[in-house]
């Protein structure tokens, strides 16, 4: 009985402790952090990252990785901006950007599932190719878009909640449903946990893997449209470094690279951590150039902390 209580204490995800620690720190060093306006702000800033990180999580659950998602995010924005510039209706342009990202994901999936390239190199190569394509098609410039719809998507609040948050939560719910109740989700868990059993049960492994990367691409595309709406422009480097944030959010949330353990539900905790961290630094007035190193250190530190806690609790359980 006593043992059980102990286990429950340990199994609070370490990420929650870290977020609480950040709250305490910021209440001292970042006056205004706890204002309602700023808390909404955190939500709006976190929305695209959540969408992106959901994609990263489902890929990592299959023991894969998508290092291209940050660049794909920017590429979707570029595609959207170029289409809008050429006079396409704005919704169609958005759809075009998202589909473009989906195609990138599809290619990733084909390279991993059919051609058997290691995921990190396939997606890294893809990121390089897309960077080149994006630079050439925009000549390295930022493509501006003007439309009232953008204002609505980035700042509207139809139900009292800002649109980006609403969209992100909607997607979160949809993916959570897919993971829980459909073959799509079952296959993803099985791909990571026991792909042999999945194969013997007659599922099409290749198709499942391709579907995973394609969905991750589509999600990166949606995140890209959210970012492009906020900045009212498309630029290929808009998502530079976001892939790291997305992967970090996934790992901090507790999704493991090896056993098909974890899930989309946990990733939201990691996203909250990173969003709080970034926002607090901004509110505290830390210049942007200091943030890269700081956030990288904190994220790696959080991952290490997480691993250590798991190891300790694991050692206790096995004892």
């Amino acid at each position, binding site marked *: 009985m006593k043992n059980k209580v102990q286990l429950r204490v340990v199994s609070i995800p370490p990420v929650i402790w870290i977020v609480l620690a950040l709250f305490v720190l910021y209440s001292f060093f970042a006056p205004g952090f706890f204002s309602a306006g700023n808390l909404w702000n955190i939500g709006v800033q976190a929305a695209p990252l959540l969408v992106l990180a959901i994609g990263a999580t489902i890929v990592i659950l299959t023991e894969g990785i998508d290092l291209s998602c940050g660049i794909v995010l920017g590429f979707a924005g570029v595609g959207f901006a170029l289409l809008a510039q050429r006079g396409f209706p704005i919704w169609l342009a958005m759809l075009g950007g998202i589909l473009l990202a989906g195609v990138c994901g599809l290619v990733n999936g084909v390279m991993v599932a059919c051609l058997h390239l290691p995921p990190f190199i*396939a997606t*890294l*190569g893809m990121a*390089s190719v897309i*960077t080149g394509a994006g630079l050439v098609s925009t000549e390295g410039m930022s493509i501006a878009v003007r439309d009232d719809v953008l204002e609505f998507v980035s700042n509207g609040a139809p139900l009292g909640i800002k649109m980006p948050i609403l969209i992100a939560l909607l997607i979160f719910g949809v993916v959570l449903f897919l993971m829980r109740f459909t073959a799509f989700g079952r296959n993803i868990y099985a791909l990571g946990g026991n792909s042999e059993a999945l194969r013997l049960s007659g599922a099409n492994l290749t198709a499942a893997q391709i579907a995973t990367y394609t969905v991750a691409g589509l999600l990166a595309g949606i995140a890209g449209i959210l970012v492009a709406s906020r900045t009212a422009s498309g630029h290929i480097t808009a998502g530079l470094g976001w892939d790291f944030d997305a992967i970090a959010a996934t790992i901090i949330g507790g999704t493991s690279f090896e056993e098909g353990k974890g899930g989309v539900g946990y990733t939201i905790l990691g996203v909250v951590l990173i969003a709080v961290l970034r926002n607090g630094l901004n509110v505290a007035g830390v210049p942007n150039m200091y943030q890269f*190193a700081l956030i990288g250190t904190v994220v790696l530190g959080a991952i290490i902390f997480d691993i250590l806690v798991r190891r300790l609790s694991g050692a206790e359980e096995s004892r």
Partner: protein
Amino acid sequence: MSEAAETAGFLHQWKGAGFKRFIGPLLRPLGLLALCIVLSFLNENFFTLKNIISVLRQSTILVVVAVGMTVVILTAGIDLSVGGVMALVGCLTSQLIINGTPIVPAIACGLALGTLFGLLNGVLVRIFGLPPFVATYGMMWIANGLAMILMQGKIIFGLPDNFLWLGSGYLSIIPIPVILAAVVAVAFHFYLKKTVSGQEIYALGANREAARYSGIKITKTLLLVYSLSGFTAAIAGIIMTARLDAAQEGMGEPFMLQAIAAAVMGGSSLMGGEGGIPGTIIGALILTLVVNGLNLMGAPSMVHPLVTGAVILTAVFFDVVTRKWSD
């Protein structure tokens, strides 16, 4: 096993081994030669001594990073931090020199910092058990971020001639960077092939369990391997700074993917245990020539990432396919 099955197995094995032993190694030098011939049509001066030396000089930075990358890849690892480390070391060294530190201690500091970053990579991978691409990717952002802080958005130039000599000097007709790269490459080749420690790296990459049972100290070897990669990235960063006479955050970025591409094109398998320095040098030369050819054709530099990406994907694809044939 029946005799027939044994023979079939033997034949099959021979076919695999034969491909690996006779055709595989020839493929890359022939590819390099074919590329040279194509380029000689694009540029009539291609086969002049001057141009060949110039191509060699262009390839030096890549060769040095890729040598360290190869060692990491031999252990089935990867080092995505090399670009960030190159930039950070270049920025730190030039910052020190500009602020009046003598050149040799400044370079020593840069090399030490690079090695430290490598060591940290090793610690993250081995002690904390992070997947190599996650650990080194995180370190890349940290290195880039530190370089940003160090530079405060500025570019450093106007370094002293003694330092620039490392990047643009000549010993009779041979450029100094080429000599440096050759020394690094030869040293690493002999280390990998002729020392026990080097052979342990191959063994560890080929089969980690077997290596552990045969008494190889895995932790020590992995820490060493990642440190070496940080060290070579630091050398490359210093050569780059000396050649450009400038240091800027983000300047090492393209080299991360190019170094992996060079190693893989040179026959190092991402699964570990296979490959070596000579192949990597050929890979680096091919990549340099491809970029050289693009410039000759007047392609804008924005195309480079596209081509590098396509080249690496093709190279890894062929690696995977040939490995399947030879098994």
